[in-house]
């Protein structure tokens, strides 16, 4: 490697790292400036003590968990069944699961609002519970590309057909096969999909705002327009959550590699 290329490489890397770290530094620094002249955690204390923060954050956490459960219930059996019985359908199913990356979220939610309004055949936006369910389904759609890909990759590493036949010959039904054989075997993949889903749902803005639900994303946007320092503390917290989710994905993946290596 000649010196010019080396210099160029370092320049690109340093530039990129500055690009990543200056905004994060700016964010953290600003969030600590609530008290004049000194750094303090005042903004964090104020935010965490805000009942609206607790309510919206709790709501989004709950939504994320519901989304993960719905996602697992839909994706795991489908990916399993496609691998086992309908391998010819895999490209088509995969194509459908990638559609949410093509159709912008704002268009999907626009469709929900018009299709499931109070005067439609399925008036989901007519009641609070109905809207909550619609939001959870919407989040499941947004997470579908990531969840499906994670689970499908997990299924590739195990011998689905043999495991299924072995379980069947021991008298297991489909529920047992899925719940006690397949799911534990692809748990790591499901967990990485779940953490990614969590990171997506927790700060999601568009769906929650347009369906008018009290989620964390819209709260963050609203408080950003009204308060001086608190929104920056909230942004730090939500970056921390994204970071933690990605860290957990790394951790479970590494953990699974270790256990496999020991066998």
């Amino acid at each position, binding site marked *: *490697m000649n010196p010019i*290329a080396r210099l*160029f*490489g370092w320049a*690109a*890397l340093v530039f990129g790292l500055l*690009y*990543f770290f*200056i*905004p*994060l530094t*700016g964010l953290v620094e*600003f*969030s600590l400036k609530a008290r004049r002249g000194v750094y303090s955690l005042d903004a964090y204390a104020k935010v965490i003590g805000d009942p609206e923060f607790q309510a919206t954050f709790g709501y989004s956490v709950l939504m994320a968990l519901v989304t993960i459960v719905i996602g697992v219930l*839909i994706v795991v*059996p*489908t990916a*399993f*069944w496609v691998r086992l*019985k*309908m391998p010819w359908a895999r490209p088509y*199913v995969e194509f459908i699961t990638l559609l*949410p*990356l*093509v*159709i*912008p979220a*704002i*268009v*999907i939610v*626009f*469709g*929900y609002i*018009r*299709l499931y309004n109070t005067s439609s055949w399925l008036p989901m936006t007519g009641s609070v519970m109905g809207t909550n369910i619609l939001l959870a*389904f*919407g989040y*499941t*759609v947004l997470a579908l590309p990531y969840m499906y890909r994670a689970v499908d990759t997990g299924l590739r590493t195990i011998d689905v057909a043999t495991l299924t036949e072995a379980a069947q010959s021991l008298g297991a039904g*489909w*529920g047992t096969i899925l719940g006690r054989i397949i799911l534990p075997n692809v748990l790591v993949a499901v967990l990485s999909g779940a953490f*990614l889903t969590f*990171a*997506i749902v927790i700060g*999601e*803005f*568009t769906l929650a705002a347009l369906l008018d639900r009290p989620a964390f*994303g819209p709260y*963050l*946007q609203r408080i*950003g*327009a009204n308060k001086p320092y608190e*929104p*920056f503390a*909230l*942004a730090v917290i939500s*970056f921390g959550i*994204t970071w933690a989710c*990605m860290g957990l994905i*790394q951790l479970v993946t590494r953990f699974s590699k270790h256990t496999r290596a020991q066998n």
Partner: protein
Amino acid sequence: MTPATPAPGTRPPRRLPLTWLGILPFLIFVTLFLILPTAHIVIGAFQDRSGAFTLQNIRDLNTGTIPSSYWISVKISVASAALGCLIGFAMAAAVTFGAVPRWIKAPLMTFSGVASNFAGVPLAFAFLATFGPVGLVTVFLRNNFGIVLQRDLGFNILSFWGLTITYLFFQIPLMILIITPALEGLRREWREAAEVLGATGTQYWRMIALPILFPSLLGTFALLFANAFGAVATAIALTGSSLNIVPIQLYAQIRGDVLGNPNLGYAMAFGMIVVTAIANLIYIWLRIRAERWLK
């Protein structure tokens, strides 16, 4: 929502093709919450208020502020995708070809995974805290060099360039994540073969590496473009409604029918799907071409 169990009728004696029933819950789900809502918008774009077929809504896209909002959206998406590709490529190349120590690669990939998901409202706040009127960089430049960003450099975070550099924060990591495997696919033998035949480093890149990487590069560009084009939350949190881009205008339209014509709103959403779909089709087509070299 129930586990995909086959219907009772799938036992061997009756050989009706019923295996597809296993993915029925999935099909019902995506039909109800992905296909139908999108189809509703697309069909609505070609209907007038009474439900009759018309192309008027598509024609009306060319009125008022709509063309300019599409134009500025496209410009921001192209600029952030192009710069994202360029910077991301340079960084990925630096860690892949050993210009910088090897151990940097793994943390950089992990960080890229995080940063490419760090879009939305918090990202807008990070850039406001850095380049906003009292942001870290703004204040630093003012106190140490006497440069006022807005006055001396004409820079404003609530503008075309402001939005572009904000989007770059997730565009660059996405580029790194996608292009690194492609760079790793460049075999050492190709370079050595070129050198044996007397090629210089520049010639190797111009005549071998870049043509092989070209589909990946262009494909990733298309993906980054679509990614920026559909971004709503960052734009709204950063600029409120002061910058007239398509997602913000559509957001306002859904909220309060600011265009005064619901079907024109459908047409706008349809336009968004068309733009992102074209970008994604280019990405998929080029990725299939690129994969020929990556075995």
